[in-house]
């Protein structure tokens, strides 16, 4: 265990490694000799950052540049890359890409009226530089009478989101804020990264199992197998990655699975995995295909609510989980509402006396704790109030949940189960189960300000996050909450 004294020593050694550079000081001052103080009058009091934040276009470009710069930083610090590429190099190569394209198939182990359900296409274009994305989604409706697979396609660009429902040939537009578009592009990327790279980054028993030439390029095939931990099924998964050792290019990805003694089945098969690809003209154009019905237009498009998680209403009460985030110390921040849908009384007085770090408001439905879903451990996350915001007439509670023991990695869980109690005279019994996602991982103050304070501002009538909710204060609070658990 590293003691505080050791940290101080190491900081001292670091300081010695970065010795003073008098030449730098002289060089800067001599460059400034050519500048006069008159130049200060040419700089207005409005600083550059404020100029950026006033313009939606430059704000987005800056946000996209921050995303790229942040992921580039991971690669710069990663010294594992060598001229001969190994599988552990792959996540880093993708994290620094400006544009990514994936194309392939999802296979289904289903039959519909005696016929095998055909595979469905999968495609994602992600333009990290400009914060745009186009991706497919697959919906499977299975009942004893019928199995139906439908594809929808989502395009995120500028101020709009367009969804094409290919099954029923309809197009719908939504208006998005910059925050929403950044969030959804980030989600698209993280979902893809999670599927492709979680197991590599866990170094989960991945070995080279073969070689194959595809279109004249030689690839090493890397394979890993792992048991499904987040499930009661006796299911084993096998991931295969085709990687060129000379260029680092990914040729193919396949995920296979096996339930008990059944044969291996193919799940996902991506035959095109490109990074830093030139994005063809028109990929993000919001054109409605011929023969499709436009439900609305950009002009009549309604605003997209920040409503990422779920809504459950029953017998006059409702729980509305808006957005969740997981911090690198394992704690979780959740924006949520608990309401009596038949009441017209304002909830404001339930919030007014609350303090940062104190008890939650006694809302009609209260999320008093969380538990990781699908994980074998036994940890509960204790709740503390951070702040509340108001959007329209709705009051949103922002709570912090701190684990009382070890916590799982993202790949070891499905999400968080909301432990709820009812504070109402209505006869409810047990509140039905509900869960939220792991959400965006918050690792730095910059992440916190961009995603969490950004979400609070998004769900606030004045477009501002509450002042007292800062990264520093939240980390201090998690330490205080943890202290009794650590003893």
């Amino acid at each position: 265990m590293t003691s505080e004294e050791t940290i101080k020593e190491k900081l001292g050694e670091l300081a010695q490694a970065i010795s003073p550079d008098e030449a730098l000081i002289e060089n800067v001052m001599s460059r400034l000799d050519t500048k006069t103080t008159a130049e200060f009058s040419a700089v207005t009091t409005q600083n550059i950052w404020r100029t950026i934040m006033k313009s939606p276009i430059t704000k987005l470009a800056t946000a996209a540049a921050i995303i790229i710069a942040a992921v580039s930083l991971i690669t710069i610090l990663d010294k594992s890359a060598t001229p001969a590429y190994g599988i552990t190099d792959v996540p880093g190569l993708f994290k620094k890409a400006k544009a990514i394209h994936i194309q392939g198939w999802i296979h289904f182990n289903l039959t519909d009226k005696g016929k095998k359900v055909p595979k469905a296409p999968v495609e994602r274009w992600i333009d990290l530089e400009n914060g745009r994305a186009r991706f497919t989604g697959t919906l499977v409706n299975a009942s004893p009478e019928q199995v139906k697979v439908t594809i929808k396609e989502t395009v995120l660009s500028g101020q709009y989101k367009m969804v094409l429902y290919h099954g029923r040939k309809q197009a719908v537009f939504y208006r998005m804020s910059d925050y929403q578009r950044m969030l959804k592009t980030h989600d698209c990327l993280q979902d893809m990264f999670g599927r492709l790279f979680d197991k590599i980054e866990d170094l989960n028993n991945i070995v080279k199992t073969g070689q194959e030439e595809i279109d004249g390029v030689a690839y090493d095939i890397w394979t890993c197998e792992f048991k499904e931990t987040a499930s009661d099924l006796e299911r084993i998964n096998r991931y295969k990655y085709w990687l060129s050792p000379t260029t680092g290019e990914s040729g193919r990805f396949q995920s296979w699975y096996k339930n008990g003694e059944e044969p291996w089945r193919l799940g996902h098969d991506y035959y095109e995995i490109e990074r830093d690809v030139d994005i063809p003209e028109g990929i993000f154009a919001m054109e409605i295909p011929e023969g499709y019905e436009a439900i609305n237009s950009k002009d009549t498009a309604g605003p997209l609510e920040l409503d990422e998680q779920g809504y459950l209403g029953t017998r006059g009460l409702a729980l509305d989980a808006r957005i969740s985030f997981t911090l690198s110390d394992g704690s979780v921040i959740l924006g949520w509402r608990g309401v009596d849908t038949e009441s017209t009384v304002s909830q404001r007085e339930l919030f007014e006396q609350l303090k940062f770090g104190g008890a939650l408001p006694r809302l009609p439905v209260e999320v008093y704790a969380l538990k990781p879903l699908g994980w074998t451990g036994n940890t509960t996350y204790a709740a503390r109030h951070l702040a509340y915001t108001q959007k329209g007439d709705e009051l949103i509670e922002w709570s912090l949940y701190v684990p009382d023991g070890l916590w799982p990695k993202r790949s070891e869980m499905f999400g968080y189960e909301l432990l709820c109690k009812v504070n109402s005279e209505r006869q409810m019994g047990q509140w039905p189960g509900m869960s939220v996602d792991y959400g965006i991982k918050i690792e730095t103050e910059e992440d916190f300000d961009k995603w969490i304070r950004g979400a609070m501002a998004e769900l606030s009538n004045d477009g501002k996050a509450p002042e007292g909710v800062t990264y520093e204060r939240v980390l201090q609070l998690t330490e205080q909450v943890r202290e009794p658990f650590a003893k």
Partner: protein
Amino acid sequence: MRTDAELVNAVLDGEKQAFAVLLKRYERPVRAVALGVLGDYHSAADVSQEAFVKAYEQLAGLRKPKAFGAWLMKIAHRCALDSARQKLREYRLEMKAAALIENPDGQLDEEKQRLLAAVMKLPRSEKQVVMLRYLSDNSIKDVADIVGQSVGTVTKQLSRAHKRLRIILERSEK
């Protein structure tokens, strides 16, 4: 000792030498920020010069002079990331790796890189006091004077920063 805010206002009033004091005060923290991104001393020195010149040019736009240190380190970080992206566009990854391998004296060793990366993850105010205390060789009293806080506050911030660094480093070893 003059605070950052006093020095910034002096520069804006025409006292250019006041900027030299700020330069000396933040020269090593800024180089540390650049080094944390770029990995080699020479590139970090170049980028640090650019960061200071940019800070001078944009000084009139700094709304809170007492936030100079944190603002400057942000500028340095952005300059370093811009430089890193520019280099990535120009070179293939294996060429950059080869250059680093050929010039091992131009970079921090792995342990110090990890520590620097951990320092970058600290909250803004803690990062600034750590940089000023260790990289600029200031006493706690001097750091307190520079940032305009009490000695007690700075001591607490340093203590929290040490604990946080310990946790970050222990986690990264696992």
